[in-house]
């Protein structure tokens, strides 16, 4: 059985079927409508061309039915109305005839929803009608593409005009398409859906050509809806047919040729897969119990989607371009979201992984297409890092990242500074994870280069001007007060990349190579000095991030130390040690507690904490007394966790522990 979207299967399982008359019902209309009545309605259809008010047409059809002494129910009467209008259109397949029918369709649910089946039946029984209706549908599509024909609903008409005028001004068109055209309204071209549907059924290749060449994204999005491949379509086979047969959208160099069809198909596929969780829930699955099933569903949908797209002649440049956009969504995400099946981040990661597997044999390149936007520079680097970490590509050159930090005063106020701020602005949101996925991916080329540690250090040194901005509160380019905070945020990103380099180097260290370890210890010391320095000079909102950065360094120092015969990165005497950090904070019980809590939260490090406290002779009981006293004085300012205090008190003095 071929693959179906989850919603498609849901619809089948729930028995969702249309109760409207179908093309087949119209083809069988002679079975219950005598030929004399149909001839009379055929003659009546000439009146539609006049045009005629709907009420009058309705009355005339009724009178013909009564004259023919035919008994019909409401549905059959509606079919006769549609059949009369379809006849009129086949006789006079002109835009103005269609306009008259659309006008009447505002007053008739039957005309609005059934006319395309009546037209289809006529086209299938009469070759001449078929040709003329196809021509009319093409003409209508072209008119919609080049013009904004009047709509009865003025609000929708104005929105459609606004959208059309806005599109040429959109600077990041691919981004808008991949986000699904946020302003799109289902009603923009809905009244022409019957003709679009007709064209797709009668000449799908022609319809695809038209959609592919159209430059009006809302029209293409509307046309996709009637094919069943659009956002609300839920037909994988229709989607795959379009995805595999639509003309190229991307050139060999990765540039986009302006055709909206394929980018919208990618959006549609992503939206469908994101529905998996909802579809399972609506079908009564217990999501907690079905996590594995959900993973399998999403995995299957991703494979089917990428499998279809892989058949396209522009698959490689398309995948590279889409990967760059997908990774942009991921760089600020947190691990929990990326590992939760059903989340957008989980899906984007699965799509990236599947595309990477396909790209393996094409050696993905870092080169950006000529129409790439600024943010793609670092995001492409991140894509390459991700693929390289999966073993399907070589990492990008680190200069793409490091060159952006060589800033002078002129640069800070000029284009280069603006560019660095723009590039970095995508990477500053992940607060729950340090360093975070974005910094990790930026760090990957450095962590995998023999001189990566030196290059990062040189990069930090080349960004000294930013340090000055922070320390001396240099205003931003616009003269506002936000300059120092902007500088702080940039330096924090650069620091996080440096920390990611350290984390990756440590995790890659399989057989402790003492030469490499000495380099890493020296590099850690450099990071620790940088954080001390930033805590001295940074009085902006960014300061709290440096406080957190120091805790991260402290805990790494503890968990990477030699332990019970296991060789670590640090020996006990390497500075700064936990004792050094505690000694520096000895007059600030709140800070001391924060350090100890961070150490406690990361593994069984009680022995190390106890030893460090002993080394610098910190009296735990006195410290706890002070903290409790402070808490009594002002619980909001000095919040304490009683469990932490108790755990601290339970760290017995070493000599006590060793005594019999």
């Amino acid at each position, binding site marked *: 059985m071929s693959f179906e979207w989850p919603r498609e299967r849901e619809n089948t399982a729930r028995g969702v079927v249309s109760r409207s008359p179908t093309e087949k019902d119209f083809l069988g209309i002679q079975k219950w409508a005598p030929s004399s009545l149909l001839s009379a309605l055929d003659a009546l259809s000439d009146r539609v061309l006049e045009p005629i008010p709907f009420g009058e047409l309705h009355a005339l059809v009724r009178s013909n039915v009564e004259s023919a002494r035919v008994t019909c129910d409401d549905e059959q009467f509606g079919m006769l109305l549609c059949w009369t209008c379809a006849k009129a259109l086949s006789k006079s397949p002109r835009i103005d005839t269609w306009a008259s029918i659309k006008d009447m369709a505002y007053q008739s649910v039957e005309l609005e929803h059934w006319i395309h089946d009546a037209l289809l039946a006529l086209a299938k029984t009469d070759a001449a009608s078929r040709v003329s209706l196809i021509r009319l549908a093409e003409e209508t599509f072209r008119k919609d593409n080049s013009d904004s024909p009047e709509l009865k609903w003025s609000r929708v008409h104005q929105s459609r005009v606004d959208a059309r005028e806005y599109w040429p001004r959109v600077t990041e068109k691919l981004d808008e398409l991949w986000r699904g055209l946020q302003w799109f309204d289902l009603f923009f071209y809905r009244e022409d859906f019957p003709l679009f549907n007709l064209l797709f059924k009668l000449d799908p290749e022609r319809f695809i050509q038209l959609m592919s060449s159209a430059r009006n994204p809302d029209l293409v999005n509307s046309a996709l809806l009637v094919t069943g491949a659009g956002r609300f379509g839920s037909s994988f086979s229709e989607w795959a047919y379009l995805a595999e047969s639509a003309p190229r959208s991307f050139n060999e160099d990765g540039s986009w040729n302006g055709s909206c069809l394929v980018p919208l198909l990618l959006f549609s596929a992503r939206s469908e897969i994101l529905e998996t969780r909802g579809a399972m829930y609506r079908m009564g699955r217990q999501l907690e119990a079905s996590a594995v099933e959900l993973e399998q569903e999403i995995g299957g949908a991703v494979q089917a989607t990428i499998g279809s797209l892989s058949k396209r002649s522009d698959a490689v440049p398309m995948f590279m371009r889409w990967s760059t956009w997908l990774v942009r969504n991921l760089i600020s995400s947190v*691990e929990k979201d990326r590992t939760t099946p059903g989340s957008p981040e989980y899906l984007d990661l699965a799509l990236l992984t599947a595309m990477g597997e396909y790209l393996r044999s094409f050696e993905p390149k870092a080169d950006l297409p000529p129409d790439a936007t600024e943010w793609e520079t670092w995001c492409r680097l991140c894509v390459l890092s991700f693929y390289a970490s999966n073993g399907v590509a070589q990492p990008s050159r680190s200069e793409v990242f490091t060159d952006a930090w060589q800033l002078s005063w002129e640069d800070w106020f000029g284009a280069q500074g603006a560019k660095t701020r723009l590039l970095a602005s995508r990477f500053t949101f992940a607060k729950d994870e*340090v360093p975070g996925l974005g910094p990790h991916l930026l760090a990957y080329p450095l962590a995998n280069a023999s001189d990566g540690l030196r290059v990062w250090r040189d990069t930090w040194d080349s960004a000294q001007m930013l340090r000055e901005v922070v320390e001396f509160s240099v205003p931003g380019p616009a003269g506002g007060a936000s300059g120092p905070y902007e500088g702080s945020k940039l330096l924090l990103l650069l620091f996080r990349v440096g920390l990611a380099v350290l984390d990756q180097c440590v995790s890659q260290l399989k057989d402790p190579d003492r030469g490499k370890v000495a380099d890493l210890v020296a590099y850690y010391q450099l990071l620790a000095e940088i954080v001390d320095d930033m805590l001295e000079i940074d009085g902006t909102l960014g300061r709290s991030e440096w406080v957190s950065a120091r805790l991260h360094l402290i805990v790494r120092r503890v968990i990477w130390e030699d332990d019970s015969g296991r060789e670590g990165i640090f020996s006990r005497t390497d500075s700064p040690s936990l004792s050094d950090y505690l000694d520096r904070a000895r007059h600030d019980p709140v800070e001391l507690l924060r350090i100890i809590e961070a150490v406690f939260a990361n593994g069984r490090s009680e022995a190390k904490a106890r030893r460090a406290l002993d080394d610098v002779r910190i009296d735990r009981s006195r410290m706890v007394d002070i903290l409790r006293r402070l808490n009594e004085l002002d619980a909001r300012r000095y919040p304490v966790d009683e469990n932490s205090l108790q755990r601290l008190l339970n760290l017995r003095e070493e000599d006590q522990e060793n005594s019999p």
Partner: protein
Amino acid sequence: MNRFGSPVTLPSAGGRPIPEKQIIWCSETGGSSRFPVGMEDIIQRRYAVDPVPLIAFGEAVAAALDRIWIVDEYIFMSGGPREQQTKDGIRKRIDRMLAWMPLTIEASDIRILTKTHKEITGSELAPLRQREADINRQSSHRDRECSIQVRDHLSTTFNYTHDRFAIVDDELWHFGGTVGGFLTSVSATSRGWSAAEHGAIQFFELAWSMGTEK
């Protein structure tokens, strides 16, 4: 993917006690735990020229130690229909807000997320900038300089909110009307919710990141 995770997890900061949950109706007495008792109170409030905001909220803001984050499309607009908005009304509203932020305020991270109004320009917001500078000048021993930021992308790049709310340190306040309790119709606020526990901090960060400073 966990090869790019962090080897370290820091315990969540906080632990500050959150005040008891409470519902407070806006009133000309500065807040009441009960609905207005009769038409007299309702009418008095309805036609108040300069409605009294919630005292409890003002006190909470003034005593904040860390953050004051506000999401409200109409925080700077005085009550009544658009055509009745005057520069004087807007100035009065901002003056009321400034009263929550004395020069001695300790909170550093003050952010207001609102929507664009043609009546609100840089000059209307100048008193906030001035207050930020004055606060920083007043106290030289702050860890972090006070920052009062305003963004107005609600209803444009982040057009997804309906309710108004505020986060004061770790406490979430939910408002039926204008944040601070300026509404003259019958309206209430509920307080005492943990902002972290209910995802308010993450939500605010997301909404805030969708635009740039005004």
